[in-house]
């Protein structure tokens, strides 16, 4: 809904008032930002030796390596989650209660439980040591959580396809599995794509949890960098900037996929266990 419908075009007096608001808010915002920056500057947070590591080849290489690990972890996590999500999502739609109920329980459980708790428990199950165990704890946690969310996306995607499609397929004499494989899934994937990309933004952000279980990745390398140089604020800012750039790229990709493949159709994921934040906002949550 565009706001312009709601009120008349502002006249000269209203425009003057808006200009005043603009000036006041600019001053207030600049004052807040300036105060924070000034305090940080006073505390010596902009000193060269705190920022120098980020242009030092040795540290830069380490950070890039960490970033590579994070990206690989995200790719492995999302790929596994898509496989698991398809299985669970189709399981939830099964005609057999034996398949439907376990799929439902798994999906609802892992959507309701905090990912970080899941990762910690998996880490302790594998043996709480740094490196491989931490890596797999994060990946398994991401599989289970994102798999459950993608299961819901899959179910919603298949539901979004007009009933006539499956009816026509059955009328042509296709069997249940063929209807799913040849008619429903190929169309559903297009509708699901933007939501899945949005969910991978959530997954990418969640790889940062490797910090707490000592899994190789950007945040873990960052921890070592600020351990060595005592520059935790600059390091956190660099990590934040990296994540923001990556996520904006993914957001752009999701928007493109929405336009290219899904059109007006949007996947809505039901409430109960809660969906990852990003996908809710990105998928636009067509509410009805």
């Amino acid at each position, binding site marked *: *809904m*565009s*706001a312009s*419908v*709601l*009120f008349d075009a*502002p006249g000269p007096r209203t425009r003057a008032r*808006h200009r005043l*608001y*603009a000036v006041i*808010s*600019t001053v207030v*915002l600049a004052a807040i930002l300036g105060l*924070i920056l000034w*305090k*940080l500057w006073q*505390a010596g*947070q902009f000193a060269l030796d705190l920022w120098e590591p980020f242009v030092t080849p040795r540290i830069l290489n380490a950070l890039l390596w960490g970033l590579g690990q994070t990206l690989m972890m995200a790719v492995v996590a999302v790929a596994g989650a898509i496989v698991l999500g398809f299985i669970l999502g189709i399981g939830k739609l099964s005609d057999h209660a034996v398949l439907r109920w376990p799929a439902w329980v798994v999906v609802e*459980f892992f959507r*309701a*439980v*905090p*990912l*970080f*708790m899941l990762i*910690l*428990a998996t880490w*302790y*199950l594998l043996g709480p040591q740094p490196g491989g165990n931490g890596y797999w704890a994060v990946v398994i946690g991401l599989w289970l959580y994102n798999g459950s969310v993608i299961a819901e996306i899959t179910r919603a995607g298949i539901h979004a396809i007009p009933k006539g499609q499956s009816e026509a397929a059955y009328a042509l004499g296709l069997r249940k599995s063929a209807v799913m494989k040849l008619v429903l899934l190929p169309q559903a994937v297009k509708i699901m794509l933007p939501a899945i990309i949005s969910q991978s*933004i959530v997954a990418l*952000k969640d790889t*940062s*949890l490797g*910090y*707490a279980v000592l899994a190789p990745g950007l*945040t873990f390398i960052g921890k070592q960098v600020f351990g060595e140089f005592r520059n*935790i*604020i600059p390091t*956190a*800012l660099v*990590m*934040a900037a990296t*994540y*923001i750039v990556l996520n*904006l790229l993914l*957001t752009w990709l999701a928007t493109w996929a929405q336009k290219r493949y899904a059109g007006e159709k949007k996947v809505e994921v039901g*409430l*109960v*266990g*809660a*969906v*990852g*934040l*990003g996908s*809710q*906002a990105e998928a636009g*949550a*067509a*509410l*009805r």
Partner: protein
Amino acid sequence: MDVLVDNADSLLAAFWMTLRLVIVAGLLSLAWGTVLAAMRVGPVRVLNLAGTTYVTLFRNTPLLVILLLIFNVLPKLGITWGYFWPNVIALTLYTSSFVCEALRAGVNSIPLGQAEAARSLGMTFGQSMRQVILPQSFRAVVPPVASVLIALTKNTSLVAIFGLADLTARMKDLLTDHASDLLWIFFGVAFAYIVIVEAISVIANTIERRWRVA
């Protein structure tokens, strides 16, 4: 099972800590998220831009990095408030950006014709907002805001890294001491989270049903 019974009091204290975080950070996020949404849809260009920038920055940064920043920036600003409040502030800064988006999506989901009809009946901006748009958007906003609050509930688990004895922190302690009871501990603590999540979900469903247009 015995592990859970023996540690019932500390687990209850941890449950209370998690619940308190959800309530305090939830209310603050709703308030700050509403301010942000107002900034983004209002007529002042500078505030539009500030709101958009805020949401873009905070929504795309991992909560862990925001927590790291808050815990290190606040002392530099001369603010030392122990452990609870910095955690709450970080959770609020992060969650409010999603609240803002959920609110905006809710208002945007009202068909344009509603506003046009209200305006062509001669209603002023205030009247059409109060009597036509907002009552409908409140209802539309319930499910996405509930989703955000449920995500907040789950995100509170990160405070365990930053010195608060919440459910996840207790789980970690128990797992260290009683490794053989891993499943009991895990499902016990998971159950506590599910109670909060289900409570939010049930409340949201009730509100949505109450406010439904017959």
